[in-house]
């Protein structure tokens, strides 16, 4: 009995490849949206921001398509073992990617909102750095899934700590700026939400990496993902 990577029934393989292809397509679109949103923020490009906002619909449609294809695959093929984990993982990743797309859209909306106002200096470069960082996390987490590499995925999970650190720094920056000049508060709030969205994208990239570990090893990741977001405790420290 020859052990094969392919199923005896070739159309089963085609169905599995099809939903993975949809997922990859979503991933590409989401990475592009994040990159465009960051660019729009840096150059205050309202048109680019609008393009990102509108483009999120495609990502949402792909998510619906993937979910219905996955449901059909589960109903008709009855996959088991690693095939089952693959389908479940792809469905989860699709949800994560759809949320990332939503965050990119939100970043773009807020970029439009502050396009006229002045910048809070110093923060934009940090924002750009964080955005590039999480964009890489998303790309790497999808690569890790395609390659079925749990070691690479674990490393991505660790990386989220750095994204959280940048967010902490930015949070303090925004507080300082808003406390300095109350005219900065509106911009500061928007920028803060933008930073929070980028940080959440990083969390979702971690979620994607966890699905890689699940798909390969079958172990569901426990809920001890490193959370280095200290902002929830910030009020106690500053004693305002």
């Amino acid at each position: 009995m020859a052990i094969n990577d392919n199923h005896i029934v070739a159309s089963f393989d085609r169905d599995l490849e099809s939903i993975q292809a949809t997922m990859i397509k979503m991933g590409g679109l989401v990475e592009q949206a994040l990159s465009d949103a960051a660019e729009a923020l840096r150059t205050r490009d309202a048109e680019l921001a609008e393009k990102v906002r509108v483009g999120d619909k495609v990502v949402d449609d792909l998510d619906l398509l993937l979910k219905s294809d996955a449901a059909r695959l589960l109903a008709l093929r009855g996959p088991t073992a690693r095939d089952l984990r693959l389908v479940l993982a792809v469905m989860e990743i699709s949800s994560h990617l759809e949320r990332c797309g939503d965050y990119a859209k939100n970043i773009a909306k807020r970029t439009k909102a502050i396009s006229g106002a002045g910048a809070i200096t110093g923060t934009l470069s940090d924002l750009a750095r964080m955005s590039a960082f999480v964009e890489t996390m998303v790309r790497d987490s999808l690569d890790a899934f395609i390659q079925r590499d749990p070691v690479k995925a674990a490393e991505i999970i660790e990386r989220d700590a750095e994204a959280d650190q940048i967010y902490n720094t930015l949070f303090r920056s925004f507080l300082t700026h808003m406390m300095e000049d109350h005219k900065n508060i509106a911009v500061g709030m928007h920028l803060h939400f933008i930073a929070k969205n980028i940080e959440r994208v990083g969390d979702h990239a971690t979620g994607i990496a966890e699905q890689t570990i699940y798909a390969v090893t079958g172990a569901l990741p426990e809920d001890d993902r490193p959370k280095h977001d200290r902002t929830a405790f910030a009020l106690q420290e500053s004693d305002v």
Partner: protein
Amino acid sequence: MDDLRRIERTAEMSDTKISAKGVQVFYGDTHAIKDVSVEIGDKTVTAFIGPSGCGKSTFLRCLNRMNDTIDICRVQGSITMDGQDIYDPRVDPVQLRAKVGMVFQKPNPFPKSIYDNVAYGPKIHGMARTKADMDGIVEASLRRAALWNEVKDRLDSAGTGLSGGQQQRLCIARAVATAPEVLLMDEPCSALDPIATAQIEELIDELRQQFSVVIVTHSMQQAARVSQKTAFFHLGNLVEFNDTDQIFTNPQDSRTESYITGRIG
């Protein structure tokens, strides 16, 4: 990739190959098939599912007039293939069965050599004039049944010496040797192990590019894997007939749903 997915997902608007309208079948006094109407598409796999005794095998055997061999069986209603009524008295059942091939539940190769098994149908229908013609037909049929590479060096050995899965593929080769247009399969995998079953299912997937395939199966999972259209029979009635992914994700009739989810026997 998108086109591929679309073709495999939905049964495209293919031509109707066999059209059955108001078919009733009686075994003596027993009313076995009650007013069944169904359209079998060309180049499509249509599955008949249902609990034991629901009449799916009986209906299948009406499509190639195998029920004629049973004295007490009466068939009423209309069954047409390509517009021609197959129960017309001028139609010769022998000719019909060359156009509508059948594969049975238990592999039943003739106790002859592999070559003679496949060559028998073409021989009695006079399809080959020379030995070279016949060799060609035999090779093509065995290739189409994905059996050629395994048996090409021993065409003269007995057909009954093959394994179960190979025997069933031999029966499929025998059925396609007469160049049929429709292939009827009555629970073809129920006597086979899972690997042989998967091989036959892959084969059915390839065959449907050329023939219209109707498969009766008591495994609804097999129907889900293999067919584009599914008909659910219950107590002699056709309860629901629809695209397979519709039947298995969102059936219309509650009886269908009960059967598929395992809530009735």
